[in-house]
């Protein structure tokens, strides 16, 4: 297999020399030991073949952006090497270098020139760029009159006007409206079919698993895992879980939501997990999959009457489904201190794809307003992805049986 990208022993350090004059001296051959060396990446080695789609994942600060900057050559490596065989294009920073006082067309010439293309090559690609952007007469208006979506359209059209050998994409990249977003991903897919290698940066496990045939997990500036996306994403989730345990209920989501726990803590949720029917702990759930929600509750005091409630919420915190053992007539009476109860709720995950959270409540009646032993938001976060069902939208999965008859 021919490799388009070879990274060998790559490392990047940001150096602090104390005095800038010492730094200047190093340019002229003086060997000065920096006062402080901060290695952001170290010992990174991997190679990527033609046509591969590789997900680059890692927590914030793991070195993803630095790695990409080294690959695109905006940063120079401190040690090791990056060999790129072919042209590389990144759609991470769309619209960089656009000048508001120039028209869309003039900016296209400029931006494509920045990518190293000649006037003739740009002229040849111009009709394609113009028609892909679909902004009509605005193409010859000043960019300052553009909406941000229009600017994105033009920027994406230029960035992908020439098929690169390696394309770096931020999966969370927003290119405006859904229609254009779709069009962009279609173009990226076409590139891949024609042999372009994709490097996809993402936080979204579902996206990596569906788009990539390999994933590289960075942790602390090193390659932590490199291989099958499913395995790598499991390792990623384990890493996140580890961090969460150590930091205790602070920020859990990248959206900045903070988990809150309240109550007398006479009874607490010790553990909450979702398992597949074969008993494996999972966080990525297929639409319609049978799952078990396992909640272990520990009584820390004598509890006369214990009700467990849980609520599934969508990513915006809107309730999707909630119930409790009061409504299901499964109230447990006289729980002794130190006793642990295991609740297992079996259900079909009839939810649409997306990220969901579960909140739990331990109370004595059907509300938490009388005795609130423990109320815990964002007790568990899981993702539903659609692997097996026909495409649909929305947060509920209501599979229809559609009959079509032609009427006489």
């Amino acid at each position, binding site marked *: 297999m021919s490799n388009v990208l070879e990274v060998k022993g790559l490392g990047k350090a940001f*150096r602090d020399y104390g005095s*800038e004059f010492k730094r200047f001296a190093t340019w002229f051959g003086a060997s000065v030991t920096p006062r402080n060396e901060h290695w952001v990446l170290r010992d990174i080695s991997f190679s990527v073949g033609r046509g591969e789609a590789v997900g680059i994942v890692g927590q914030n600060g793991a070195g993803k952006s630095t790695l990409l900057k080294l690959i695109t050559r*905006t940063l*120079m490596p401190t040690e090791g090497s990056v060999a790129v065989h072919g042209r590389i294009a990144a759609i991470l920073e769309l619209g960089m*270098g656009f*000048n508001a006082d120039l028209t869309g067309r003039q900016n296209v*010439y400029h931006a494509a*020139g920045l*990518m190293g293309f000649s006037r003739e090559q740009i002229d040849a690609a111009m009709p394609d760029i113009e028609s892909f952007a679909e902004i009509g007469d605005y193409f010859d208006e000043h960019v300052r009159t553009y909406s941000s979506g229009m600017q994105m359209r033009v920027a994406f059209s230029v960035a992908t006007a020439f098929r690169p050998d390696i394309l770096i994409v931020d999966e969370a990249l927003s290119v405006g409206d859904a229609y254009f977003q779709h069009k962009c991903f279609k173009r990226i897919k076409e590139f891949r079919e024609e042999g372009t290698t994709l490097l996809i940066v993402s936080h979204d496990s579902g996206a990596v698993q569906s788009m990539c045939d390999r994933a590289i997990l960075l942790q602390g500036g090193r390659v932590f895992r490199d291989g099958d996306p499913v395995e790598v994403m499991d390792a990623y989730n384990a890493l996140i879980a580890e961090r969460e345990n150590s930091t205790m209920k602070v920020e859990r989501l990248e959206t900045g939501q903070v988990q809150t726990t309240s109550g007398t803590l006479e009874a607490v949720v010790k553990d909450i997990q979702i398992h597949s029917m074969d008993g494996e702990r999972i966080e990525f759930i297929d639409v319609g999959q049978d799952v078990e929600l396992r909640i272990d509750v520990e009584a820390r005091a004598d509890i006369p009457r214990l009700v467990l409630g849980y609520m599934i919420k969508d990513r915006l915190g809107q309730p999707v489904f909630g119930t409790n053992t009061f409504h299901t007539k499964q109230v447990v009476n006289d729980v002794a201190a130190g006793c642990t109860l295991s609740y297992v709720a079996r259900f079909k995950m009839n939810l649409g794809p997306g990220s969901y959270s579960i909140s739990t409540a331990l109370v004595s009646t059907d509300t938490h307003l009388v005795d609130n032993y423990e109320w815990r938001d964002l007790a568990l976060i899981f993702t539903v992805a659609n692997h097996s069902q026909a495409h649909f939208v929305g947060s509920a999965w209501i599979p229809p049986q559609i009959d079509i008859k032609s009427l006489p």
Partner: protein
Amino acid sequence: MSELLRAVWRYRHFILSSVKNDLKARFARSRLGAAWMILQPLAQVAIYSVVLSRVMGAKLPGTTNQYAYSIYLMAGMLAWSLFIEVVTRSLTLFVDNGNLMKKIYFPRATLPFIAVGSALVSNIFLFVATILIFTIVGHAPTWAFLWLPLLMAINVAFSLGLGLLLGVINVFVRDVGQVMAVVLQLWFWITPIVYMPTILPSGFGRIIAANPMYYIVSSFQNVLLYGQSPALAPLAWTAAGSVILLAIAFLMFRRAAPEMVDVL
């Protein structure tokens, strides 16, 4: 070095369109547009002429034209405006383009070429306007004007060498930019542009002699006002020094380039 020049050649379209866009953007939405490129230096010349022509005019030996002092001023200004534009642009070149350099890969060596390109374009406009004014006041161009391309080249070499050197340092030590704003003002007054070196008290001679811009500016004045060839020996020394300075600046730029983005 050849690798650098190859990259620049490959990006020549980008350099050209950047120069063009730069000029366009500078004068976008202004009524007089590109005219400002020449109006500003000419207005300065007009101010000095009005204020100082009585005092200075009589001190210009060997001229018959009543506008001799204005011509002298314009000649000096033509040289100075090129110098100041190249230096100030190079000084903030990397800081201004920091965002771009951090996000997109392109040969960094194109940046100084873009800066010099747009400075040269506006200077050539000013030059044309100067010639036009000379002709109107009855000071027709002479063959000595053919020296000008060489003089401009030496001027650019010196300005770019200095500007680039300081521009690279400015990325790491931002004080340089602030200091230079003051230094350049002082520099203007220790260069004989609005006055003649002959009117200075004897003690100042050494300062003037140590000022490379003196040799460049006086060459412009010799050529444009007196129609004479510039004094060759000092000009040759200045040219050699400028080329060496430029080479050092580019060397430093190449050495600094890998670390520049780290701190931008």
